[in-house]
């Protein structure tokens, strides 16, 4: 087995463990390349099916192509597609683009808060009707006790300490100092009432592995990752006010792989285009403790 085969097998194993052990489980889909690879791995694990609902947190400031791509794939792959949002903050325009709050508070409200309350079922969830492609209110208000997330250890410092199965307490807190042990391929799949688990099947993947796998499997990704002729492309996707494209002429997956291996990005952090990281002195840590992905 080559390295990608090994990564794939391990991720599939983790996904199957998660699906077996958790009744109320969902997978976060940010529409970015990592969680799209995760979605593809779910199809690998479940032989073409995706028996786990996908949850997207819509900040309503996402780059429009992202939403279009999301709904297209949801229909094509027959996904149980759910989204949640912070309708209050959006209604009162308490956002960074509206000039009312700073970047970090905006992330807190539109992503972290929205995520927390969508997962717990407190706020309305919207589910796609696969016959019409339209969203309606999801009658299921049950709390998700297992949440599959596509974070990678190489993204930044705090993520390198994550477990494959990582418990969060009642307050959604991540106790970095007291994490459960993982012996061999045995993970923490038991959890006390009120707590839930984050599951990280992509922990050992690097940005380069992701692109190599996308190429090998021919996974469809949004065209935002490619240069459309203006010498710019997105390396990491987020909300348009805070995510800047990078200068690059990579027009396809192979050119991105080349660029990562030997080109200009070989030694530059992937999230360098994300403005909110820099506003928080400790990198993503503050956001992350609160549940940011």
């Amino acid at each position, binding site marked *: 087995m080559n390295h990608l085969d090994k990564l794939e097998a391990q991720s599939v194993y983790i996904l199957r463990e998660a699906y*077996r052990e958790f009744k109320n489980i969902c997978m976060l889909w940010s529409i970015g390349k990592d969680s799209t690879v995760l979605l593809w791995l779910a199809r690998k694990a479940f032989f073409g099916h995706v028996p786990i609902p996908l949850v997207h947190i819509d900040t309503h400031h996402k780059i429009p192509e992202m939403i279009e791509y999301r709904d297209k794939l949801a229909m094509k792959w027959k996904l149980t597609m759910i989204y949640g949002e912070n309708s209050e903050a959006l209604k009162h325009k308490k956002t960074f683009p509206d000039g009312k709050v700073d970047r970090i508070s905006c992330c807190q409200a539109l992503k972290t808060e929205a995520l927390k309350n969508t997962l717990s079922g407190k706020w309305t969830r919207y589910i796609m009707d696969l016959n019409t492609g339209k969203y309606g209110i999801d009658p299921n208000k049950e709390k998700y006790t297992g949440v599959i997330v596509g974070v990678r250890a190489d993204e930044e410092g705090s993520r390198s300490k994550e477990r494959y199965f990582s418990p969060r307490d009642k307050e959604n807190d991540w106790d970095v100092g007291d994490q459960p042990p993982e012996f061999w391929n045995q993970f923490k799949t*038991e959890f006390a009432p009120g707590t839930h688990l984050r599951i990280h099947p992509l922990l050992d993947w690097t940005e380069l592995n992701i692109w190599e796998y996308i190429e090998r499997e021919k996974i469809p990704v949004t065209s935002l990752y490619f240069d459309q002729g203006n010498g710019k492309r997105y390396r990491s996707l987020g909300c348009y006010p805070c995510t800047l494209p990078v200068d690059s002429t990579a027009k396809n997956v192979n050119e991105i792989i080349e660029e990562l291996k030997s080109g200009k990005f070989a030694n530059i952090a992937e999230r360098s285009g994300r403005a909110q990281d820099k506003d928080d002195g400790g990198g993503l840590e503050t956001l992350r403790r609160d549940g940011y992905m």
Partner: protein
Amino acid sequence: MENREQMNIVIVGHVDHGKSTVIGRLLADTGSLPEGKLESVKEYCRKNSRPFEYAFLLDALKDEQAQGITIDTARCFFKTSQRNYIIIDAPGHIEFLKNMVTGASRAEAALLVIDAKEGIQENSKRHGHIVSMLGIRQVVVLVNKMDLVDFDEKVFQAIQTEFREFLDKININPVSFIPISAFNGDNIAVKSPYTLWNDGPTVLKQLDELVNRKEDEDLPFRMPVQDIYKFTGEGDGRRIVAGTVLSGNISKGDEVIFLPSNKRSTIKSIEGFNISPRDTAYAEEAIGMTLETQIYIKPGEILVKAGEKHPILSSRFRANVFWVGKAPLIKGKSYKLKIGTMRIGVKLVEIINIIDAAELNIDTFKDQVERHDVAECIFETVKPIAFDSISEIELNGRFVIVDNYEIAGGGIILEGVADSSNTLLEHIMDREFLWERGLIPSSLRETIYGHKAKFIVITSGSEGNDKLIQDIGRELEKKLFQMKYKAYYLGVSSLFYGLASQTVSDHQGRDEHIRQIGELARIFTDSGQIFITSVFNLDDYEAQKLKLLNHPNDIVFINIGDSSFNTFQADVVIGKEGAANAICAVLKKQEVILDYYL
């Protein structure tokens, strides 16, 4: 596509012996740091009036910087011309041993760092021992801070001699000892001019000479069944047995056995998504397969080939366990065992000895295994399970023990132990010996009640019959009751919310419910009643258990439709139509109740 080979390395050793510095240096010397990272850390040190240390590179989290010690395993990536490495930084502090285990159990090789000036410390040994238990065979010992002892060969040799002797006792044959100064970069990427007396490799060269474990394809086939999928809702008729192959290989047409249920079938196809069709799968692959025959199997069983050496099938085994739980491991308490994909109740039966991981002293007098102890013990599962000894098929001889939602210990199985002294049998002998008998003989109850006592167990192996057997149980209860017999039906789900709700955590689940229903049956039948229950998909072991628990009273097993048993025989097999009447007829035939029409 490049798709380079990768190796996971764990770095261990006593606190402050310089693990993080070694990693920082490896990252810097292989050009693996993100641009600007080194500068920003240096800037941070200047601002905070602290001397720069490579270790700060790794201390990505704020609270970790405040404490100045690594509390959790962190992963760093670097590469050489040979391959890519993930280096797992394991904390040296004893409090964080569970984190060290997490890091080490993913590694192919270990770098064990010893401070030349401080010499071998408690955790140098303890970590060595755990690395050995976790199955890491390649260990490189780095004697660090050589600059502080003036690169004195004698100091290096003394540490080497002493530590080799220790490692020998725990079956580690170290690949090499390397004298280094991580802070100054001596013998990390380039040979040091100060250690000309040493002709060994640099750390980087040594790493590149290590080898990744070969996939265990030559061993007998083992695949723990992770799940059984059927996505009929989406028009997919396949019933897929999914799992990751631990060892060996499997091909279409192979005759296979599921253990411990002992059910047999033949592989019909190897399944996958977005792969080219194929007929064979190998070790380490996460696969799926369909079977020629429809048999009912459960996740947790292990799949083996009929013609190959089988695993051990036993409920008792001897093992070395490393305990990290907050509460000690004690005898008699119910824990959950996870081995492969099996989850099952387990008890500690006997502590053979407790080994001080650092000094290797053996303590045979402790009656519980405390946090950070390594102990040799005998365990017993509630039902027989299939496993291999660690020396035969390593990956099928490892387990963890869960205590109160947490993984509290990990272990390796040394051998199976004969089931001669089964704790269930012992329990029943004790119970019967101590049973407080009333003054009414059972014959008198029979005369007064007009029937005999009986425990009736209704089961079925046909898919979808779980509800049906409950209905039959209730209908039977009603019929007997209308005939004025003392009959009572109790479903397992009633137990779940009643008697068992306080005592059973969800993971003990079924096994504990079976035990409780068996104990209840003993009481009900003792009181002269006809006690009815229904349990879907009862297996051989569960049936035996119910029979034993109801001892010395009478039991009858009724099977509706397909049998869920392997070799165990139900007393009566009937169809679902008129089942309650048919059971009444059986009871008459067995003279449990009288036939008034005779």
